[in-house]
């Protein structure tokens, strides 16, 4: 047994997290910053954090993840990191020539209390930030919130630094994708394009973290939202924010700064959540939904109807990030599956309410936990008490899956041992089909592996 010390009996823990279901803010900020064209993320702290965040994102995407660090030493931790950051700006703009440096803080610089706005002003005054170049920042203390908070903070920082309302009415809508994968962002743009809606999307990591093999390493790949695009978000008709945990801050900031009204939706994972996005875009942009999208919806529906026997009533345990979990539950309920255990390490006040809203009364005995104490050790203990038919979550679930012999669909962050998430969307109707295919395969592969010989089916 890989997790041989995990027992069904739950003892009360108040101080110890075992096998976390979240990580720290800066990695989210780094991910968000990579979704801006020509942007180099910069970690203001000692260099280990940056190294860990880059490594984890790289293992997840199998792509270069470039970022710089302030490389604090003991001296900087006593005297503050101003000198380090000033020097970093000089080196970065000279050597790596980005359009933007997006600084996020770490536990260390937050505990010291470095004032990044002030340091950036000083850098500007000292001529360390060349004409036409930008340095922005987000405060991302890791002892508050989680990686999702960090993403939300950097997304908001893009708004506060760049978005501008000029008074011009641009026939475009802002689509804040939340923390989803590059192929998801591409799919969202594709959906909007097919509807004839011009969208401004940021962050946008498509064509950044899924860049093609060309024989040349582009330090700043062609993807990412441009500063001009983000700036123009202030003149859009409205904003659709996807995923409350990841996108609310940026959406509200846009409203506050540029009076662009927003509509917040759950992530468009699965049939109904996608329906709601399409509806919202249709109404906000005043367009018609083309048949190609309605047909796609029909194909997903068809697939569900055809294969329902393999999935209905199955008990599912899920862990991961709040926005993803809410929408996954929504989809599972629509498939007549039963999300029985749902857990996120991210502290989120409205999480349970949101999950219950999508579950309705379909899973009366559901267990939901969030924030401190909600870890994968607890999840495993629940499973040991009463098992489930399927696990959905990040790669760390493979240890539970193997020990307990439970089919496992990888979803969320990080996925370190498979590649599909980096290429195929799970949002939109097509994403729903991809996700459903994975769920079906998990059950069917198991049936094929374990069926008695005389019960081995050719057609399924």
């Amino acid at each position, binding site marked *: 047994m890989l997790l041989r010390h995990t027992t069904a009996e739950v003892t009360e823990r108040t101080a110890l997290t075992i096998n*976390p279901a979240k990580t720290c803010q800066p990695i989210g900020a780094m991910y968000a910053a990579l979704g801006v064209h020509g942007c180099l993320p910069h970690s203001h702290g000692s260099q*280990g954090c940056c*190294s*860990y965040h880059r*490594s984890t994102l790289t293992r997840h995407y199998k792509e270069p993840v470039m970022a710089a660090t302030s490389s604090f030493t003991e001296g900087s931790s006593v005297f503050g990191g101003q000198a380090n950051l000033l020097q970093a700006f000089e080196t970065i703009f000279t050597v790596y020539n980005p359009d933007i440096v997006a600084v996020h803080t770490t*536990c*260390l610089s937050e505990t010291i209390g470095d004032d990044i706005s002030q340091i950036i002003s000083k850098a500007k005054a000292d001529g360390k930030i060349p004409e036409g170049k930008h340095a922005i920042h987000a405060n991302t203390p890791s002892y508050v919130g989680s990686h999702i908070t960090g993403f939300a903070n950097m997304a908001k920082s893009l708004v506060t630094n760049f978005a501008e309302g000029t008074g011009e009415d641009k026939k475009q809508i802002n689509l804040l994708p939340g923390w989803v994968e590059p192929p998801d962002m591409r799919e969202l743009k594709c959906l909007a394009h097919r509807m004839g809606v011009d969208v401004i999307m940021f962050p946008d990591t498509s064509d950044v973290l899924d860049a093609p*093999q*060309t024989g040349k390493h582009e330090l700043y790949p062609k993807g990412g939202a441009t500063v001009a695009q983000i700036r123009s978000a202030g003149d859009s008709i409205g904003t659709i924010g996807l995923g409350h945990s990841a996108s609310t801050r940026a959406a509200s900031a846009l409203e506050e700064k540029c009076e662009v009204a927003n509509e917040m939706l759950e992530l468009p994972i699965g049939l109904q959540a996608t329906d709601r996005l399409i509806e919202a875009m249709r109404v906000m942009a005043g367009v018609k939904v083309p048949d190609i999208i309605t047909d796609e919806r029909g194909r997903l529906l068809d697939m569900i109807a055809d294969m329902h026997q393999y999935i209905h009533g199955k008990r599912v345990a899920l862990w991961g990030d709040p926005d993803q979990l809410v929408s996954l539950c929504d989809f599972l309920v629509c498939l007549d599956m039963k999300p029985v255990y749902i857990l996120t390490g991210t502290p989120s006040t409205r999480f349970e309410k949101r999950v219950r809203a999508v579950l309705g009364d379909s899973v009366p005995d559901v267990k939901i936990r969030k924030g401190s104490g909600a870890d994968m050790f607890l999840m495993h203990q629940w499973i040991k008490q009463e098992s489930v038919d399927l696990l959905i979550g990040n790669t760390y679930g493979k240890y539970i899956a193997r020990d307990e012999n439970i089919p496992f669909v990888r979803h969320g962050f990080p996925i370190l041992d498979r590649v599909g998430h980096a290429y195929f969307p799970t949002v939109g109707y097509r994403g729903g089909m991809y996700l459903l295919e994975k769920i079906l395969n998990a059950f069917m592969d198991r049936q094929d592996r374990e069926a008695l010989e005389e019960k081995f089916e050719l057609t399924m």
Partner: protein
Amino acid sequence: MAHDAHEVKKEMVAIYPKKLGKKRAEQIVVTELGPDGSVPEIKANVRSSPGIITQRGCAYAGCKGVVIGPSRDILSIVHGPIGCSFYAWLTRRNQTRPPSDSDPNFITYCLSTDMTEQEIVFGGEKKLKAAIKEAYDVFHPKAIAVFSTCPVGLIGDDVHAVARQMKEELGINVFAFSCEGYRGVSQSAGHHIANNQLFKHVIGLNELAHEDKFTINLLGEYNIGGDAFVIEDLFRRCGIKLIATFSGNSDYDSMANSHTADLNLVMCHRSINYMAEMMEKKFGIPWLKINFIGAAATAKSLRKIAEYFDDAELKAKVETVIAEEMPKVDVAQKDVKSRCQGKTAMLFVGGSRAHHYQVLFKEMGMEIVAAGYEFGHRDDYEGRKVLPTIKVDADSKNIEEIEVRPDETRYVPRLSQERKAQLADPELEFQDYVGMMPEMEDGTLVIDDISHHETERLIELYKPSIFCAGIKEKYAVQKMGIPCKQLHSYDYGGPYAGFEGAINFYREIDRMVNMKVWSLVKAPWQTLAPQPEPAPVAAD
């Protein structure tokens, strides 16, 4: 290699702001072996410049990730916000094989105090205490190790006092590491801190006696990809008794018992030389630098051990094992040479692998065009003979140097002075390490703490057949159309140690440098000679 390394160096540093360029120039040297065996001086183990994009990580990574993490039954609790613990969770591929299903194995668990703002403001000692107690209640370990991350030192939590108190309360061994990420300039500081605390709190606690004739410890082997398994098997076949490995596939009791061995073998000099030195001083255990990466290097290392024990039977057994293994190696070597001979490699990684792995490439007939460490010191480059001349700078001077004296009852000199003198042959590297540079061809570039910019320029200029580095560099290099072999994680392959590992490595590199995909980067229409623009069709 048509390039003048001195020119390349100049070109590489030209872009930097002046002061930085000057500093980097001291960390880049062109090898040249003097008649007296001297090599040029390199600047190493100095801070990375902010913004330069370094490969390096932090002291915590070196302490928890590298040195302590691989041992399976010391329960590690990371005291700090969640991230540091999360990222070190199973990501180093330390394989371990508990003797039975009921023996403890904590490798798959990630424990953290998940500090919140509350603790940052009011202190985290209370939470740490509670966490240790809760961890004890769940796991009942023999030993608990506590690791401090960046904010802990700053808010002034006394992790050592908490450890002492909990040790008393729980009746098990509890010890802590002040391995905050800002200490030192790289992972290297963390290695040192880990060595110190293991030495103070674990070594010498288990007096189990051994009847075996040839008892050793293996220091600085972390069982990435199963390397230690291969080496253990070689020892077994030679009749050498391995007491403890630091720290691949290891457990607490064996480490506590390691002072009973008669010889320490040092694999990764950078991460563990402190331990070898301290055990020498306190218990009288001599050490030997060995290297089990590369078939010839493995054979040589086994022979060195036999030479040390100076026993005819052992020597014979070692020769038998080598004779059993070498024919397979030769066949594999010959096979890959037909496809790899003359190809070029660059290695930029760690603190010993960039040296050790050169051997394997040379065995395949490949040429090393540039190499360097991520966190090596001058002695890892130039050899231990430069130790007396190394100046410790302000960034590293706060790392504790333990003063060690011979143990009153347990110091047993293993060798007579006369025998020691006999072993002083430089080839043997008895209590010595010659370093990377003396073994490299003249005119090769050696770069310490290489930056991303330098990496790209090197690749553009030299177009090596393969580049070796870590996960952060891997895909950037590959985007340039050059295969990149990870030498931290082995790209989830391995083992590469010993004879069996050498064969695995040859095949792996052969696969990588001869992959079809590198020749398919251009689409057919991208390789066409430029066509004249079609003449505009006249409108009728």
